[in-house]
Each structure stands twice: as C-alpha cells, then as structure tokens.
C-alpha cells in the first residue's frame, strides 16, 4: 500500500520532461497537478517546449537506452520489475515499450491492489507475467468472480495469483476445463481441488500432456493405485510437472536399491523432490558406515526424512555422527 501511495505522489510531482514510451511528447504539466483520475481518457495534447522534444534514438538491443526517458519504464523499475528478464523474451520488449503508465498500467495495478496483493509482490508478478496488461479489466474481474463462485476464499485467490502469475491470463472456460480434468482424473472432491489449486497453482496451468504422462507413469509404471496417486498429487504436485525419466529414476532407486516399500514412499512423499545424486550420496555414505537401517522396528532407525531435509552438514553430524572431512573424502571415491 505504501508503495502505491508513493507511486501516486510521484505522478503528481512529476517533472516537466515527460514522454510517452513511444517517445512522443505528451502533454500533462498542468494535468498532473490535478488529482489523477484513472478513468479519464486523455485526448487533448499540447506540445511542450522544443528542448523537451525527444532525442532521436537508434534501434537498440535493450531497455537501458529508453529507461531514462520513459516514465512507464521508470515506474516499472520502482515497482521492482526486472526489465532485463523481460528483455530476453521474444516480442515482449516491443509490447512493454508501447505501454503508457496512465492508460495501460495503472488500472491493472489498481486491480491487483483491490484483490489484496501486497505491493512488494508486484515486481515479481509483473516480471513473470508482463502480458498481464493484455487482459481487459472486466475479463480479469470475471476470472476472479469465477474462482469466488467456486467457493475459493479471498485468501486462496490471493495465494493463487501470487504463486502463479499466469493464472489470470487463462480464460474462465479454460480454467474450468482444467479444474474439471483434475477432478475427474484423480477423483478429487471440491475441497481437494481447491486445496490443490492453492497449494501448487502451476500444476493447473501447466501443460496437461505432462500431467497425463506422469499420471500414467505413477499408476502403470510405479504401480500406485487411484487413491495413492491422489494422495501423491495432493502431497507433492510438483512431480506431475517433472521430467518423467527423473521421477522414474528416483522411484527405482528408492524401491529397488534402498528397498523402500510403496507405503513408506507415500508416508514421506517429499523424497520425490530430492535430487537423485543427493539421495545416492547420502544413502551410499550411510551404507559405508553400516547405518543404512530403514526398519523403524529395529534400533538405529534412519528416517527417509534424512535424505531430503537439512544441509549436508546437518545430515553428517546429526544422522551419521561423522565429520564433514570424512564425508568429503567419501564423495571423492564416487
């Protein structure tokens, strides 16, 4: 909120030299002293004195050439938008340069503010989704109403929008189809769909081909049944977006080499999010020390949690009772 106030203050005391990003001189010395009305269309344009005419700029490769001259870009920097990242994507710099802060940007920021997104997060949001400005405000509102009508709470909607800035670019129909896809394929209840969408909204907006492929992989290749797949999806949705080969490699190491039962894997699903090399290193070190005891009914039990939680130092000192020097020397034998 503080950010927004600051932003509007800036607009009021804006200096005389003010250019539209397309480098046309725009009026507004007097205009800006008035309280800015965002709904008002700017139609009348008066020329500003000749020294304020924009200098000729040759074609450029990056925003740096424009940023000192363009009010919109300056505002973006103040908001914390990483222009250097936007620059690397095809077509986006042209789009961003054509935006005018008052006409194209302000209302969208107001929309985010009304939705209750913290101003600190605008920068990250816009860096990830600069095409947000292509959406009409009405459409955006419809998309939020849709979520509210599906009994998402306001906090959940905020969380979805912050975690996955692209969500609002998807039309209501498309989101509905996708939520339906998850509900049908994993037989989720309404609450579970809402939980999934809030926990990891990216899985809903990701390419569904991946999800189909991983669904097949989990059910047919790993042999989990419907309920188990569902609990995996709800516990760690990320794996349904990962490369299938990596998921299979991790599973086969856990199942065939470490002899973890499927129940145990379901009990500690986080282990799927661990890199294979990390899992292998830690397991082989435990094996070397003779401490690879994964049966909870016997003494010196090592929980699968040891493979994914904590740094190497914590693992070596707490779980293995060894020293980092030993661990480093061990890593050099692999």
């Amino acid at each position, binding site marked *: 909120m503080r950010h927004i106030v600051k932003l509007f203050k800036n607009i009021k005391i804006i*200096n*005389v*030299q003010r250019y539209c990003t397309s480098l046309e001189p725009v009026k507004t*010395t007097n205009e800006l002293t008035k309280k800015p009305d965002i709904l008002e269309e700017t139609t009348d344009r008066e020329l500003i*004195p000749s*020294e*304020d005419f924009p200098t000729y700029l040759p074609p450029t490769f*990056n*925003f*740096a*050439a424009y*940023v*000192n001259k363009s009010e919109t*870009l*300056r505002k973006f*920097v103040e908001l*914390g*938008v*990483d*222009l*250097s*990242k936007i620059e690397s994507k095809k077509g986006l710099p042209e789009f961003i340069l054509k935006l005018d802060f008052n006409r194209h940007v302000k209302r969208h920021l107001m929309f985010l503010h009304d939705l209750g997104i913290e101003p600190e997060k605008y920068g990250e949001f816009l860096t990830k989704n600069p095409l947000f400005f292509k959406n009409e405000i009405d459409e955006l509102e419809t998309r939020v109403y849709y979520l509210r009508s599906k009994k998402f709470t306001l906090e959940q909607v905020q969380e979805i929008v912050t975690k996955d800035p692209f969500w609002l670019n998807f039309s209501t129909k498309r989101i509905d189809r996708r939520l339906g896809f998850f509900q049908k394929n994993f037989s989720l209840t309404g609450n579970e769909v809402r939980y999934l969408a809030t926990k990891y909204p990216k899985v809903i907006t990701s390419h569904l081909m991946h999800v189909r492929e991983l669904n097949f992989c989990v059910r047919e290749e790993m042999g989990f049944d419907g309920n188990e797949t569902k609990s995996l999806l709800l516990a760690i949705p990320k794996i349904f977006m990962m490369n299938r080969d990596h998921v299979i490699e991790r599973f086969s190491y856990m199942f065939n080499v470490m002899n973890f039962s499927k129940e145990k894997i379901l009990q500690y699903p986080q282990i799927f999010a661990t890199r294979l*090399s990390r899992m292998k290193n830690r397991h082989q070190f435990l094996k070397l020390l003779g401490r690879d005891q994964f049966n909870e009914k016997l003494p010196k039990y090592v929980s699968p949690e040891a493979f994914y939680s904590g740094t*190497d130092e914590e693992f070596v000192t707490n779980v293995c009772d060894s020293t980092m020097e030993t661990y*480093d020397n061990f*890593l*050099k*034998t*692999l």
Partner: protein
Amino acid sequence: MISARKSYIKTVSSAQKAWSLLNGVICVYKPSGLTVNQTRLTIMSNLCRDLNDMNVRPARKRVTIEPSSDYSKYLIKTQTDLADHTLVVGERYQPTDIIVSASNHLGKLTSGVMLFGINKGVKYATWLRNNRPIRVYHVTGKFGKSTETHFNDSPITAQATFDHIHVGKMNSLLASLQASHQRKMFELCGVDPQSQAAYELAKMGPIRPANATIPLIYSARCIEFKRPYFTIEIHACSESENYLGILIHEIGIDLKSLAHCTQIRCIRQSFFTLEDALVKRHWNVETIIANMKRCKDIMNKHPEMLKQNNPNLRNMEEKNNKEKTQ
C-alpha cells in the same frame, strides 16, 4: 585448514575485489553423471551467484538539465542513472562474463580430478593440456558380462564364466600390456628402438609422446581383485573414457571371459591430486579463490608442467620413487 580459508576470505567483501582475484587454475572433483560442460556451467553460475551477493557496484549517477516549472531557468541535477540499474541491465556479474575452460576432458561416466582455467588462468589451462599430463585412473570392471558400450548403463550383449580367472593371470596380462605400450612409446618418439638414440632416451626414464592423439599406458596394475569385481590402476596419457572402456573389454576377452567397466575415477592429474580437488559442495567463490592459490603453488613448484624442455618424465619418476620410499 578450513578456518584458514575463511580468515583469508573475510577480507574480501566487495565483488570487484573478488573478481580481480578470479584469475587462475582451479582443481575440482567432477562427480560421475555430470558432463564437463555441465560442471563448467555450474561453476560459472555459482561464481555469479556469489559475486552478486557481495557488495556490487552501485548504479552510476547522471546529470540532467531540466527547465524549471516556469521555464525561466534550468535546473541541473544529479540522479541515479536508471540505465545502469541492475533491474534494467541485469545482474552485475553474469555467466557470460566469466571465461571457464577445461584443461582436461573426462567423460560423463568418469569421475575425478579436473582442472579448469578461469579468466586469465585459461592460458595456463591450455599449457597444461598441451603438455600432455599423465593421469592416473582407478578403473573398476566386472567379469561375466559384456555390454554394448562397455559400460554398465547399456544393454548386456553376452555372458561368460569367470571362475578360472585369478590375480596371477590378471597381473601377467597387465605386465605384458605395459611392456607393449613402452615399446610403442619409442616408435612414436621417432627413434628406432635398437638405436643408440633410443638407449640414451631410455636411460632417462619414460618418455612423453610427441603426438597427443594416441593413447599410451605407462603403467597398469591390479590393486583390488574381488571376483567378479576388479580394480586396476592405470597411468596413462591422451586416453579417453571410451578407450578405457574398450581396454576393460579386451582384458576380459584376453582372460578368456568377458568384462565391462563399472567405474572410472581419475585420482591424479600430473601433480594435482584428490586432496587438491574441490567437491561439488565447495564450488563457491571463497573456496575457489583459495583453491587457485593452492594450484598456483603447485604450478610454481613444478614449472615443467607448463613449459617442457625435455622429452622425458624425470620429475614424475622422482616423485614416484619418493612415494615408494615413504
């Protein structure tokens, strides 16, 4: 030693200072499963990450001349030059800014000591490579099965028994292998093995090949033999991962069985040993700068690694003899 590293680094908090120190050769331990290029990119991105976390250069100032509100006079102001802001031009240090070049090539399945030249250290890395350093490998093989690529990650093509193989047979085979390679060395050196010149060369110890493309084995011996697994230590020059795979395959055939390779580990490259190498956890600015110093000391101690003026390997021999007496 670790505390010494830390105290050395405490003095460097500005990224510019750290950047100026980033010139030299480093020695890392490449884990298997990672290609040389992946290793290189990891090092580059880790360096950038750490440098950007330090105190980086703030954005420049720029002078603006603007008319005042009533256009009667001009106002001269200095303000931050947004064109130099990190959000506009990107992070101060980017992977493309750093030159990292590998001195030796290890295959994807090989793990072990690798040398990288960073920035101005690239030329030393090139010299090291051009001088054809001797590398020491521990190669583990498994009897009984042969595979398509001679490594354990490919389909099995044939099976054979291996009960008849014992250490004696293995050792005699390796000895004959070593002898035939020593003979080959003189041929590659361009001297007739029967001549006086060859005798003079041989007096001084093993010699270096003039041509880097042909693999040469200086010594091969079995250091572990637990059927079906066996490990041999190979001192070689201009070899490759494939060559070592084929070598294990041929050892299997010569012993009237079959074998494939399960692990290749490079434990030494000329004078750079495992102790000098950094494991993946240590690939950050602090330890890399400390490691550069260490590598520099090694190169200063053995300048012949960079510039050769002799075809033989006298220094290497001396070191080997010392090791043996110890």
